[in-house]
């Protein structure tokens, strides 16, 4: 069932056992799992079926620190959430991403990749993915990895029909959960705002916050403040360890044989380090995206190379004259070291129309990340030389220690951390089952539970974790 307002929903007699906040990939996936298990679920969705400026306005906020996207641009607030404009690039976190790294504090998950593997076939159905091919090691240091560019499933569109016909799932649109009330052991209700006004409270046995990788922190910080710590009793890490995938063009490559790597439909190939290389250099994970350089770009590279290695420049010119692809831009996206100081805070100056403080995001890239970017490119360049696959040129701003360019991709629109999973209650918010520490009936879904970010796009892992949480709750609740 789908209702366009909270009033319309109230008119029917539907008693929910579970209340899910948010209908993005996370909320929709958990709702479908619980519904299939015969558990009655309500999904409260702040937005409507379509994009609207009025709804987006609730997402405005400010960023303090490094340049970042406007917070009302980097996500979408309507049915299906940010899947309405995601690019559909898919890959699951590697097993090494779940492991603690001795050289990077506060890394390591309380679960391993094996814990989500049983759900990957479901994820493939949901996201319409073919099977991933195994990584191909091209040296002891570098793996040629696969990132699948999927059809970018829009969750609102794909599952609207199924949800509308469901007897167990009720999606209630235009219904914003402004805060959760709790007594330090249980969430007792969700306070609602609908059609521009207070719409009372909603109760259920279980609550799952699936409002996105920024909004989960905001919702819980505000709820906790209003409930005097009754919603997240162990709140030291709440909002903290927020992470992105910074993304910058780090240089160029000339390739001896472009066809050595089977590029995808958009002529791109992806490379990441091995765990051994990360360990040896004490760097974070990264992903190098190799993109074919357009003709004028190749000419610039030849001119530059001619000063240093004239014979090689001649070879590239020859390749170019034969219309052979031989040069690529290297975009690097990397894993951020989790830092408590990178965090979502509540603004003291600005509230949204419902009176909820807006987000003040504190975000800065660290020295370790800068080293990851530079050493990562050196590692890739060295591998290309050793294997006679090509040569790499690292961008001047990187070798000269210059500032990050401001006219580039910046980051991936991947909002991770803030309600991390863990066993240490001072460094995490939820346990290995995504249940808030100290609370009996409050769970969190989505990338806000990520302990570390790995290098790959998050949604494939998000959906796998959502399937796992849905499964877990079905067993906890039983029918």
């Amino acid at each position: 069932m789908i209702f366009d307002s909270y009033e319309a929903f109230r008119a029917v007699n539907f008693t929910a056992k579970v209340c899910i906040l948010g209908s993005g990939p996370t909320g929709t996936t958990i709702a479908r799992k619980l519904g299939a298990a015969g558990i009655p679920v309500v999904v409260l969705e702040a937005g409507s079926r379509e994009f609207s400026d009025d709804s987006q306005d609730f997402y405005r906020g400010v960023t303090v620190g490094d340049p970042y996207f406007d917070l009302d641009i980097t996500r979408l607030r309507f049915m299906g959430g940010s899947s309405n404009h995601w690019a559909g690039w898919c890959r699951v976190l590697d097993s090494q991403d779940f492991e603690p790294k001795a050289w990077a504090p506060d890394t390591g998950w309380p679960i391993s990749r094996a814990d989500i593997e049983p759900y990957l076939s479901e994820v493939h159905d949901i996201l319409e993915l073919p099977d991933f091919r195994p990584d191909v090691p091209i040296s002891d240091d570098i793996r040629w990895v696969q990132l699948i560019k999927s059809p970018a499933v829009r969750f609102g569109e794909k599952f609207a029909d199924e949800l509308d016909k469901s007897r167990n799932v009720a999606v209630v649109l235009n219904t914003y959960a402004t805060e959760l009330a709790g007594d330090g052991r249980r969430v007792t209700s969700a306070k609602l705002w609908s059609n521009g006004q207070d719409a009372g409270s909603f109760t259920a046995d279980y609550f799952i916050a699936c409002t996105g990788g920024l909004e989960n922190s905001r919702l819980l910080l505000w709820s906790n403040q209003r409930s005097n710590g009754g919603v997240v009793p162990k709140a030291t890490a709440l909002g903290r360890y927020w992470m992105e995938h910074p993304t910058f063009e780090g240089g160029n490559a000339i390739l001896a044989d472009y066809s050595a790597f089977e590029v995808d439909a958009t002529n791109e190939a992806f490379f990441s380090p091995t765990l051994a290389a990360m360990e040896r250099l004490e760097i974070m994970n990264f992903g190098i995206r190799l993109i074919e350089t357009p003709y004028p770009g190749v000419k610039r590279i030849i001119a530059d190379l001619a000063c240093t290695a004239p014979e090689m420049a001649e070879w590239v010119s020859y390749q170019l004259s034969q219309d052979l692809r031989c040069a690529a831009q290297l975009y690097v996206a990397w894993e951020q070291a989790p830092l408590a100081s990178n965090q979502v805070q509540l603004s003291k100056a600005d509230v949204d129309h419902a009176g909820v403080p807006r987000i003040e995001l504190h975000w800065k890239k660290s020295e370790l990340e800068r080293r990851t970017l530079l050493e990562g490119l050196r590692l890739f360049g060295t591998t290309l030389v050793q294997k006679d696959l090509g040569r790499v040129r690292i961008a001047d701003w990187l070798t000269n220690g210059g500032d990050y360019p401001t006219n580039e991709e910046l980051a991936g629109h991947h909002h991770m951390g803030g309600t991390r999973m863990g066993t240490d209650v001072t460094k995490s918010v939820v346990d290995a089952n995504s249940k808030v520490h100290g609370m009996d009936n409050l769970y969190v879904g989505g990338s806000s539970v990520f302990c570390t970010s790995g290098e790959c796009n998050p949604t494939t892992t998000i959906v796998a974790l959502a399937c796992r949480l849905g499964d877990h709750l079905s067993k906890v609740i039983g029918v």
Partner: protein
Amino acid sequence: MSFFTRKMSRRTIMQALIALPALSLFRKLPAADPDAIVEINGWILKRSDLA
């Protein structure tokens, strides 16, 4: 003139100077490895690329 040269005969000095190029032939210079990785102007290259 330094104390050292004052003590040596002119002939000895001449002999030493003549012997110099020959001596350098026997000096063991590490041969530049053409496969060594070098970083120049941001390029990561093989030394032999610089030829």
